[in-house]
C-alpha cells in the first residue's frame, strides 16, 4: 500500500534525472557544433574553467573566445527560454484542463507581436528608431509591455461574478489574437522591405541576439517565473477534478488562476522580447510528457521545463547547421520538428480512445 505512492515519487525522480541527462548531453553537443567545431572534451574543459572548477591553458584560445562570446550566451538563452515556454504551456494546459492549449492562448504573443509591428512600421515617423541603446531596449520592452497588457485585458474581461470564467478567458484570448492578427496584417500592408525583415525576426523567432547584457536582465526573470510556476503542481492536480472540487479540497482557485496566468505571461512576454515568438514548444512538450510518462503535474511541470529546453536546444542546432552559414528562423524549425510529432501523438491518442 505504502509502495504505490512512493513508487510514483521515485518514478518522478528517475524521469527527471533521465531528462536532465539527455538535456545535458544535447547542450554539450550544441556547444560543440557550428562554424567552428569544438571537440566535446574541450567544451567540457572550457565550461569547468568558466565555473572556476578547473584551470588549463591547453585549450585553443579561438575555442575559448567562440565559447565565451557566442555559444555560452546563446545556449543559456535557449535553455531559459525553452524551459519557460515548456513550463508555462504545462501550467496553462493544467489550468484550462485542456491539453491543446498553447501559451499564446492568453493573448500574450499576439499582444507582443502587435506592439512590435506597430513600433517597427510606424515608429520611424514617431522618431523612435534612432540607433543606440534605446533602440536595443525599445523593442524588447514594447514586446513585454504589450504582451502583458493584452493578457491582463483578457484576464479582466473574463471576470464573472468575481470569478475568472475559463471558457470566456479562452474565447477572449482567441478574440484578442484575431484582433492582433488583423493589426499585424494591416501594418504589413504598409511596411517596406526592411521593416518586413525586422518583423519576420519577431514573428518567427531568432536566438542569435543573445548578449550577456540582455541575459543579465531577462535570464533571472525567466528563471524566477519558471521556478515559481513549479510550485503549482499540487494545486493543478486538484484542478484536474474541476474548479469547485479543487476549492473543496483546499485550493485557493482564484489566486492560483491569477498567479499562473500572470507568471506565464511574464515568462512568455520576456521570451518574446528576447527572441521573438517561438511557437509549438509550449503546446507539444507537456502533451508529450503526459503521453510518455504520466499526468501528475508534480512531474509534468518540471519535466516540461526540461523538455522545452531540450526541444529548443535541438531545434537551434538544426536551425544553425542545416543551411550554414545562414540560419533558419527558430520558430520554423520548432514547428517543423513539432508538428509531425504532434500529429502522430494525436493519432495515437485517438486510436487508444483517449478522446
Amino acid at each position, binding site marked *: 500500500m505504502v509502495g504505490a505512492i512512493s513508487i510514483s515519487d521515485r518514478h518522478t525522480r528517475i524521469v527527471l534525472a533521465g531528462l536532465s541527462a539527455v538535456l545535458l548531453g544535447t547542450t554539450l553537443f550544441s556547444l560543440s557544433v557550428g562554424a567552428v567545431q569544438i571537440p566535446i572534451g574541450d567544451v567540457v574543459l572550457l565550461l569547468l574553467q568558466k565555473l572556476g572548477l578547473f584551470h588549463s591553458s591547453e585549450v585553443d584560445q579561438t575555442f575559448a573566445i567562440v565559447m565565451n562570446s557566442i555559444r555560452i550566451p546563446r545556449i543559456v538563452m535557449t535553455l531559459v527560454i525553452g524551459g519557460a515556454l515548456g513550463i508555462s504551456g504545462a501550467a496553462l494546459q493544467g489550468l484550462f484542463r485542456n491539453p491543446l492549449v498553447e501559451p499564446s492562448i492568453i493573448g500574450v504573443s499576439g499582444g507582443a507581436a502587435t506592439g512590435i509591428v506597430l513600433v517597427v512600421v510606424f515608429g520611424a515617423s514617431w522618431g523612435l528608431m534612432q540607433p543606440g541603446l534605446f533602440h536595443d531596449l525599445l523593442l524588447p520592452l514594447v514586446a513585454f509591455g504589450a504582451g502583458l497588457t493584452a493578457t491582463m485585458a483578457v484576464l479582466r474581461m473574463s471576470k464573472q461574478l468575481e470569478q475568472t470564467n475559463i471558457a470566456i478567458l479562452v474565447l477572449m484570448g482567441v478574440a484578442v489574437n484575431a484582433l492582433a492578427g488583423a493589426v499585424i496584417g494591416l501594418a504589413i500592408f504598409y511596411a517596406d522591405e526592411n521593416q518586413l525583415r525586422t518583423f519576420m525576426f519577431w514573428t518567427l523567432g531568432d536566438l542569435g541576439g543573445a548578449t550577456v547584457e540582455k541575459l543579465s536582465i531577462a535570464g533571472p526573470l525567466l528563471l524566477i517565473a519558471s521556478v515559481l510556476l513549479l510550485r503549482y503542481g499540487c494545486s493543478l492536480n486538484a484542478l484536474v477534478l474541476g474548479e469547485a472540487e479543487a476549492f473543496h*479540497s483546499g485550493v485557493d*482557485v482564484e489566486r492560483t488562476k491569477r498567479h499562473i496566468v500572470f507568471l506565464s505571461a511574464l515568462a512568455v512576454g520576456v521570451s518574446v522580447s528576447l527572441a521573438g515568438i517561438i511557437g509549438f514548444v509550449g503546446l507539444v512538450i507537456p502533451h508529450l510528457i503526459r503521453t510518455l510518462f504520466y499526468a501528475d503535474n508534480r512531474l509534468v511541470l518540471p519535466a516540461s521545463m526540461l523538455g522545452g529546453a531540450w526541444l529548443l536546444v535541438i531545434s537551434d542546432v538544426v536551425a544553425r547547421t542545416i543551411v550554414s552559414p545562414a540560419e533558419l528562423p527558430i520558430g520554423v524549425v520548432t514547428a517543423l520538428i513539432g508538428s509531425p510529432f504532434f500529429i502522430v501523438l494525436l493519432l495515437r491518442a485517438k486510436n487508444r480512445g483517449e478522446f
Partner: protein
Amino acid sequence: MLRAGNISVMIRGKQILQDVSVQVLPGRFTAVVGPNGAGKSTLIKVLAGEISSTEGSIQINANEAASMSPKAMSLVRAVLPQHTQVHFAFTAEQVVLLGRQAHAATKNENSAVVGEVMELTGTSAFRSRIYHTLSGGEKQRVQLARVLAQVWEQTLYPRYLLLDEPTSSLDIAQQDIIFSLARLACTRNIGVLAIIHDLNQAVQFADEMVFLKCGRCVCAGAPPIVFTQSNIETTFGCPVNLYHLAGRSHPFMVPSHNPLADAPSFQPCIQFNNNVINQ
C-alpha cells in the same frame, strides 16, 4: 455544528434561497429534499463556502465560514458532487490522494488513510486503473473515497460531509452502498448533509429531513414528524399516498396520480418580492 443562519441568496436579481436555516450536527445524517429548482444545490454551495450568501451567515464549529481560508475549510468539510470529471489520465488512487491535498500529514499517514477508505469503498481492487476507464458506480465510489479521505482522520473537532445528489446516475445497489458509507461516516464524529431525490431513500437513511421549495424551507425535523402526506404534497405539488409495512419503522411513499387517466398539472413557483422564482 455546521450552521446556516437565515440564509438568502440572490444571483443576478433572482432570489434563489430566502431565509433558510439549516443545522448539520456531527454524527447525524440530514437529508435535503425538494423539487428541481428548489435551491438545494445552491444551499450546498453556500454551506461549502463556494458562493457567499446575500444575507445570513454560515458557521462551521462556531467559526464564521466567510473568514476561513479554503485550506482551513477543507480540513473540516468535504463535498461530493453529482458527477466529477477527471480531465487528465489519473489513476483511481491518485484521485483519492487528491483528498489529502491540504493535510499536513506524512506520506505514510496519507497512504494509510487512502488505503483505509479505498478498502471501505471497495475501490482498492482497481486502485491503479485510469479513472475514466471505470464504470459509473466505480467512479462515484472512488470520488466518495476521495472525500472520505479528506475528513476521515479522527480530530478534536467534528467534520462535515456534503453530498449533492451523489447517486443520481447509479443503480440501486450502488446507491445503497454510497448512503450506507455516508451513514458509517456519521460514527466518526462527521455530520452528513445529503441532497436526495428519492424520498423513500431519504426517509430510510436520514436522522433529520429538510423540505425545500422555491428557495424556502417548508419544514424540517425528524422523519416521523415531517415525512407526512401533506408536507410532501405541498413541497412537490404531486399527490402521494403513504403506506406502512409491518416491521419497518417508517412509511414509504408512492405518487397517487394516475398517469393514464389524468393530464399532469404544473404549479408555478410562488412569487417573492415580485420575482418569479423558478431557478
